[in-house]
Structure formats: C-alpha cells, structure tokens
C-alpha cells in the first residue's frame, strides 16, 4: 500500500485551457479519498494525471515515495475503474480480469487463484465464461472492479464508476465499494459529481471548483464548517439557503427585517458590514408568531418522512425542511435557527468569516 501525494499539480491543455491549477493534497495510506465538484472542475483530469493517462504540466505526483510524473500507467502499480467500465468486449469475464496479469507475466496458477478469489468476493463466479455484453450493468460494474482487485495494486482509482447505474443499484454498489475498500485496505481515489456519494464514501473529501481545491478534510467537517460559500452550497441536500444580511454586532445579524443570533466563535465583521448568511434547510425551525423571521409560503413538497417548505424571506428564496405534519397551514409563518446553524460568508471573497 502507499499514500498518494500531489504537490502543486497543474494541467494546461494545448489550447491554453487551465484544467487544474496548483493542486496539493495527500491521501494517507489506506484511506478513501473522494474528489467531488461540478463537471469541468478538473477532478477527472486530476485522477487521470494520477493514473498516468494525462501528462502533468507542472508539479509532482507521488505514489508512496516515488515520483511518478514520467512513469507509464502500467508501471505505476495502480488499477482503475472507468465510468463506462471499459471492459474488453471480445474477451470473457475471466480473460478481462486476467489480461493485466498475463501482460505482467504472472504465473498461470497465480492468475487462476487471484481471479477465483476476486470472483468470489464480488459474487460473479457464475459469469466467468460470459462476454461483457451478456451481463447487466451491475454485473459489468463488478467485473470492472474485479479487474482492479486481481492486480493487487497500491492504489485504486475510480472515475465516476456508478454514474451509469440506476438509482437503486447505485446505492447498493456504493455500499459494496465502501465495504470492499475497508476490507482490502487499498488507498483509493474516487471521482464523482454526486455529493451523496462523496459524503458517504470518503475518509478524505476534496471539493474542487474551477481547477482548484476549495476545501479538504473529513466529510463531516466540511459539512459542518464549509470554508467557502461554494462548499457550503455544494454539500448537503437540499442545498443551503443563502440570505443577504447585515452585521449588527459581534453576536447578531439582521436579515429581512428581523435579527438572528450568531454563536460565539463564529467569525464575523464590523457592524454595518454586508454578509451572506448560510442556513441549512434542516437547521431552520418554525417559531412562535412574533419570535422569528417572517416567511411567505409558496408551496410545499412532500418527501414522505419530511416536508420541504419553499417560500420567501423578503425577496430571497428559502427552503425549510421539517418533519411531516409540522408544516404550517397558512400562507405565512415565522422561522428561527439556533446560533450554531449560522454560517457567515464574505460576499466579495465568498470565504467563510
């Protein structure tokens, strides 16, 4: 096993497009790192640079102690699971998994043992003689994972491996990937644009935007203390509400005619400064009349266990998540939030205050 270390890695394409700008972070040995961000943020390019499928314009990529910038993908001791699986359509499942080992001159008995073991772990033993075409999406996904497992690499790389599956299967495979990575203990780098996958899978979460890292850390830390407005808006579903506010004093902000208390220790600014106040829908609660901020109700979405109330606070749109049955019946009501739930951002730099 090995860690993966990126130092000031950048990628500039021939046309001059800067896909990745000076990214640095470390994936500790044995941990599961997820790169998440909107499409075009550079996360796939970064993964492909680790794999050796893209040249590195600047900076260094280390796997373990070794700088791999100029090493062929085959010699980096990595395995990759592709979005479209990239199974060899003319080879049987067995041959698909064995191909990489054969190319490396692994003894035949060893290949058989490893494929058998991987097939057992992934429960694809009945399909070993079939062609990829004869398998369902989920089965193909397993074969693609099997191809990675048999190699016993230092690092697993996953490029949006679940995005071609239907919703139900995606949840199931997500759990399996996590379980597998735990039991094998192989360092993994996983790219996705799905923030639920990112939150649930990662030990280390890297949120990227416009070729740069917005924030790195444990997923729950990023959720609780997003460093930028972007991270705050990207993680969490339904997405965080952003309301324009003004600082009254170190513990108070005014929003849409009312005021909210800010927890001590929350960064803030001098009185009169405009700020953006972020509050997650699940952190808002319904307040008694006269005690909170007044919200005009537009409509209500039923999710079963919870309800989403969509409304407006002044001009700003707002979503509130409440347990089913708690939504008020009138066309207006008042809301409140605990001081810990408020995140303040500088409107100019978008950084957390």
């Amino acid at each position: 096993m090995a860690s993966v270390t990126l130092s000031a890695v950048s990628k500039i394409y021939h046309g001059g497009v800067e896909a990745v700008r000076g990214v640095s972070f470390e994936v500790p040995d044995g941990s599961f790192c997820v790169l998440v961000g909107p499409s075009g943020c550079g996360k796939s390019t970064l993964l492909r640079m680790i794999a050796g499928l893209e040249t590195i314009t600047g900076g260094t990529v280390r796997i373990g102690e070794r700088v791999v910038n100029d090493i062929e993908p085959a010699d980096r001791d990595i395995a990759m699971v592709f979005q479209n699986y990239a199974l060899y359509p003319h080879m049987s499942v067995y041959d698909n998994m064995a191909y990489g080992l054969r190319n490396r001159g692994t003894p035949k008995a060893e290949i058989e043992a490893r494929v058998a073991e991987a097939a057992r772990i992934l429960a694809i033993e009945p399909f070993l003689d079939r062609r990829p075409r004869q398998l369902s999406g989920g089965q193909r996904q397993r074969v693609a994972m099997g191809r990675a497992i048999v190699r016993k690499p230092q690092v697993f790389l996953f490029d949006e491996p679940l995005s071609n599956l239907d919703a139900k299967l995606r949840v199931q495979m997500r759990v399996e990937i996590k379980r597998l990575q735990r039991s094998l203990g192989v360092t993994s780098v996983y790219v996705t644009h799905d923030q639920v996958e990112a939150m649930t899978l990662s030990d280390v979460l890297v949120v990227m935007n416009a070729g740069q890292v917005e924030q790195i850390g444990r997923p729950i830390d990023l959720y609780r203390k997003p460093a930028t407005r972007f991270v705050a808006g990207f993680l969490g579903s339904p997405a965080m509400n952003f309301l324009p506010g003004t600082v009254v004093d170190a513990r108070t902000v005014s929003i849409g005619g009312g005021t909210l208390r800010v927890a001590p220790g929350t960064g803030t600014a001098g009185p009169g400064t405009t700020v953006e106040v972020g509050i997650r829908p699940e952190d808002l609660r319904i307040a008694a009349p006269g005690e909170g901020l007044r919200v005009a109700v537009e409509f209500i979405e039923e999710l079963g266990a919870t309800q989403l109330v969509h409304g407006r606070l002044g001009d700003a749109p707002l979503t509130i998540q409440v347990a089913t049955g708690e939504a008020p019946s009138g066309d207006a009501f008042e809301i409140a939030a605990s001081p810990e739930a408020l995140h303040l951002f500088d409107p100019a730099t978008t950084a957390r205050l």
Partner: protein
Amino acid sequence: MVERKGALARILPHLVLLTGVAIVAFPVYLALIGATHESSVIANGQMPLTPGGAALDSYYRAIVIGPSRTTREPVGTMLLNSFTMAMLIAVGKIAISLLSAFAVVYFRFPFRKAAFWMIFITLMLPVEVRIYPTYKVAADLGLLDTMAGLTLPLIASATATLLFRQFFMTVPDELVEASKIDGAGPMKFFFDTLLPLSRTNMAALFVILFIYGWNQYLWPLLITTRDDMQTIVIGIKKMIVTSDAITEWQIVMATAVLAMLPPVLIVIVMQKLFVRGLVETEK
C-alpha cells in the same frame, strides 16, 4: 399497409418482383444453357431454351484443356490466377489499411495530417486515369507478368483506410486507457483488442474487396502478356474471336459461369456481410 388491399394490389408487387428477378437472371440462365450445347448448335443461332447434353464436355474442356482453336491456357490455371490475385488484393488492402488507420488514429506525430490527406487524395486517382504512367512504373520495376505487378498497384486504397479510421474512432478511449493500465503497449493493444473488435468490419470489407479484385479487367489486361498469367476475366474476353465461326461459345459460356461462380457465391452466402460492406464503404 395502411389501406385494405384488393387481390390485385396484393399480387402486383410479387408479379413485378418476379418479372424483375426473371429479367435479372435471364442472361445467366442463357449462359448456363449455352454451356450445355454443342458449339455448332449455338453457332447457327438455333440454341433452344432447354439444357442440352454437352455440359460435362464443355466444363471439362474449359477447365482442363482450354479452347482448342484459340490455344489459350486451360481455365483451371486462370481460376487459380484470379483467386490468387483477388486474395492478395483483399488481404493486402486490409492489412496495410489497418496499419495506416491505426497509425493515424492512435498516434500524434509530425506530418500526421499530411499522411492522412496523402492517402485520402488517392480516392481521386482511380487506376483508369493514370493507366499508362502506372504501366510504365510497373515495367521499370520489372513487374510485368508478375503477381506483384498485378496486385501492388491495386492494393493501396483510401476507402479501406477511411473505413477503419472511422471504426477506430468509435472504439471507446477507455479501452486504450484500460489496456495501458493493464500493461499493453501499442502493438499489443492492436493485436489483443483492436483487431478482434474489427473482425466484422474486416470480414465485410473482405467480401467487397475480393469481388473487386476478382473482377479487375483493365489493369490485368495491360500488365499481363503471358498466357499463364491470365486471369479468368481477361481469358474469357480472349476466347471470343471476332469471326464467330471459330468462337467456341459453349466453352465461353462454361468459362463465364466459372468466372461468376466464386464472387456470386460469396455474395449469396455472406449476404449480411456483403450488404454491410457495401454500405460501410460508401460512407
């Protein structure tokens, strides 16, 4: 289809199609019949529409002996020449086109575009428009009356290269990347993955190119002078002597049947591949 049809409307398409099939087949039917009659019956213009009894004799003489009065090689030799030529052209074209398409699609190198255009422009230079200079080149290289001279100038073709290029473009990039990670170099990828994936395309193209090679006329006509180098398509023309009295028509017709048989069989037996090949090469 949409409206309910009367009896006539139901039968009409079949009538028209059957007539079409009959008209299309008639010349070949006559050839089959012609090969079963004595030369004298044919020469005096009294050949009936039913088979005669000379079939065995005609085919035997055509294949083994050759027409007596025009003293040419037996058709057996010609068949062999035609087969060799058609195979060399088809296999050769596919081989060099696969390689060049692989180079153009899967590598970045100086003059790549230039090489592609160089191949592409040959579409506009069919052998017919450069016939004598090509003949002179072949003669200067000592290729007259050789299999190499017969096939090499017909082997380069933009069509096959374009077809393979187009097909390679549809092969997912991830397969290359997976191969790279699996430790396969370019030639290993070519043989282990790209060739197996191209099988159907190769087979379809082979059908078309075999027919193309078998049916060549103008180039073999110029390049071969020795009788034992003749292909069947050239040989049959030389059997027809302008004064009909000495043309042995039953042997000409037997030869015609033999000349049609291999390519027609291929089309009928491999109809699916043939249709696919035709459609693909016209894209």
